[in-house]
């Protein structure tokens, strides 16, 4: 007796019902894909954007700097640490940087802000949001020169243009007040008012000498990974490799707790809704399969009468739920794929309702929502739905069989 093909045919005896159930599985898939995919996309973007804003996915800094930043807390032998880190797998890049607060002045006006001192040889557009957002001019090319890159907000407030000079005043490592001159090489615009109005990029060696730092001192090493999901693992490896009493190796969750918080909350919300929808779909499948078994009691009775073993009947029911699962997955793939492709390529543009400077956890959010699903997620969704359907089908089959044993047909 070919259980498989019989099961298949049984399924199509009740076309409508099968289709509706299969469709509900498909719907579940579309939902799971959408929720997980847009979530993944947003989180990945936010985490990477946060990393590009200066601190990276993993940061190596002086002990206690994260809690209370201070000029005196610095990372020594920064280039050696960098070399070590770059040799590790999974690390896309590592940049030494100095960060601090300063007053920026022209003859007209002065305002407070922050600087990020970088080595242009180490920096790329890919891993530096500010460089990526340059709208006029170019990043300075020397690390010990007098160039500066400022935000559009600051340019406006101080009346600066490329070529003009800016004097910055800050406190050096001995607590003394120091000043230096810089000429505007480029202007960037991230869209976040606070950043555009208060942030500048300076050449790292110039700042080192202004602050009276050692030749190889920095505030932190910003480490960007190929895949942020390896953060925990790589952090451990880095700590083993270069950790010591004076240093801390922190992940983005620790350096940007607000961002981590928002992502965590959103993820929870996502999980709960998906579980809920999953349960409901399971209920539907359960009901359908149970009904289909119940209403064929007579039929099954007859089959047993002509010699079919109960176990075979059980296998039959299981096969039916397997077919149902597959049908559901196929329908799911059919309806989800165009939707996914559209979201992947075009995305949904919320900029009408969100606007330009929407930030969560301190990171700018792209108002166009795309979708990205990694292999693990795809497998998880398919397996989950398949398993769900199977389990929902098993229960009625088992119960029925059990009940049958005590009943005479």
């Amino acid at each position, binding site marked *: 007796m070919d259980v498989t093909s019989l099961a298949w045919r049984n399924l199509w005896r009740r076309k409508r019902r099968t289709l509706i159930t299969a469709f509900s599985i498909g719907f579940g898939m579309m939902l799971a894909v959408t929720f997980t995919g847009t979530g993944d996309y947003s989180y990945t973007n936010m985490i990477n954007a946060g990393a590009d804003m200066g601190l990276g996915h993993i940061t190596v800094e002086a002990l206690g700097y994260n809690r209370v930043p201070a000029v005196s807390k610095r990372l020594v032998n920064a280039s050696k640490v960098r070399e070590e880190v770059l040799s590790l797998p999974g690390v896309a890049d590592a940049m030494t940087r100095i960060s601090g607060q300063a007053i920026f002045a022209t003859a007209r006006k002065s305002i407070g802000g922050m600087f990020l001192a970088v080595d242009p040889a180490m920096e790329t557009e890919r891993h530096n949001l500010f460089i990526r957002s340059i709208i006029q001019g170019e990043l300075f090319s020397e690390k010990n020169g007098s160039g500066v890159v400022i935000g559009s907000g600051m340019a406006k407030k101080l009346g600066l243009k490329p070529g003009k000079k800016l004097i910055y005043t800050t406190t050096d490592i001995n607590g003394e*007040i120091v000043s230096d001159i810089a000429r505007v090489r480029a202007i960037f615009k991230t869209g976040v008012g606070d950043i555009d109005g208060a942030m500048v990029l300076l050449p790292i060696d110039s700042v080192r000498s202004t602050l009276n730092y050692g030749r190889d001192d920095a505030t932190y090493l910003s480490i960007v990974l190929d895949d942020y999901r390896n953060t925990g693992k790589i952090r451990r490896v880095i700590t083993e490799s270069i950790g010591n009493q004076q240093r801390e190796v922190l992940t983005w969750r620790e350096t940007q707790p607000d961002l981590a918080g928002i992502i965590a909350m959103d993820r929870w919300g996502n999980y709960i809704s998906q579980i809920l929808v999953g349960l409901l779909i399971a209920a539907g499948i359960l009901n359908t399969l149970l009904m289909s078994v119940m209403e064929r009691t007579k039929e099954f009775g007859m089959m047993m009468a002509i010699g079919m073993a109960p176990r075979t009947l059980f296998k039959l029911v299981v096969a039916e739920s397997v077919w149902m699962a597959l049908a559901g997955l196929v329908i799911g793939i059919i309806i989800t794929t165009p939707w996914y492709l559209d979201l992947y390529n075009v995305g949904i543009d919320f900029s009408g309702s969100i606007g330009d400077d929407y930030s969560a956890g301190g990171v700018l959010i792209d108002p166009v929502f795309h979708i990205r699903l990694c292999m693990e997620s795809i497998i998880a969704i398919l397996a989950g739905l398949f398993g769900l359907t199977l389990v929902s089908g098993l229960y009625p089959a088992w119960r029925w069989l059990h009940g049958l044993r005590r009943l005479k047909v």
Partner: protein
Amino acid sequence: MQRIDGYKMRICKFTRLILSISLLLSFLNSSPALSRKEKPRERINSILRHIDDLWRGDSSYAVFKVQVKTAHYTRTMKMKGWSKGKDKSLVRITAPLKEKGTATLRSGNNIYTYLPRTDRTIRLTSGMMMGSWMGSHFTNDDLVKESRLEDDYYADISFEGIRNNRNIIEITLTPKPYAAVVWGKVALTLLADGYIQLTEIFYDEDMTISRTFTFTWLKQIAGALRPTVMRVIPADRPEEFTELVYEELKFNIKIKDGFFSISNLKRR
């Protein structure tokens, strides 16, 4: 002659500059081989070197009045100030009563202010540098930057002759490329006779006037004819001003380095 505050600094420095120029001129007059127009770079350099030599080891004491008029308030303060060398100075307020005893110490790049009302001394942070000094049109930054005028600028004589019926010399100071100053240029105008300062004008990078210092009220003080009143007028609010008036002035006083200390700030 030492700097006590911005104004004094300029008086002293540029008076010295002028004296040096006049010295040099007289030297030049007696050596026809070196004319005024030849090797101007060398001439300025030697002037500046000359000034530097006049500087070291000098000290001063002054009593002066500061009057500030802004759109929102007018205030008058009386102060005493001491200075030694290029980077040590101490200024103490003697009037009005509310602020009596407030003292500012400058030692190198550090500025400390003692506040008698709370009996606390605070160290100025970089965040306060661009803030106004005692509510005047000077900034705390001015106090620090003044001693570095010669380090930070090139000096050139940009005009000599008659202007407004007076025989004047105009010296233009252009910031050196790596000097941390916000100005585009500074133009100093002096009377040719006696090299007395008339005005000092600060321009921003676009060469628009940003603020103007005027020097008036010539008096014999500390052994020479000097302007005793300096007024600074911001270009964007010309009805406002800050005015310094010298009442007493002495140079080369005996004063120890230890005088310029945080503990000394508190004394009344």
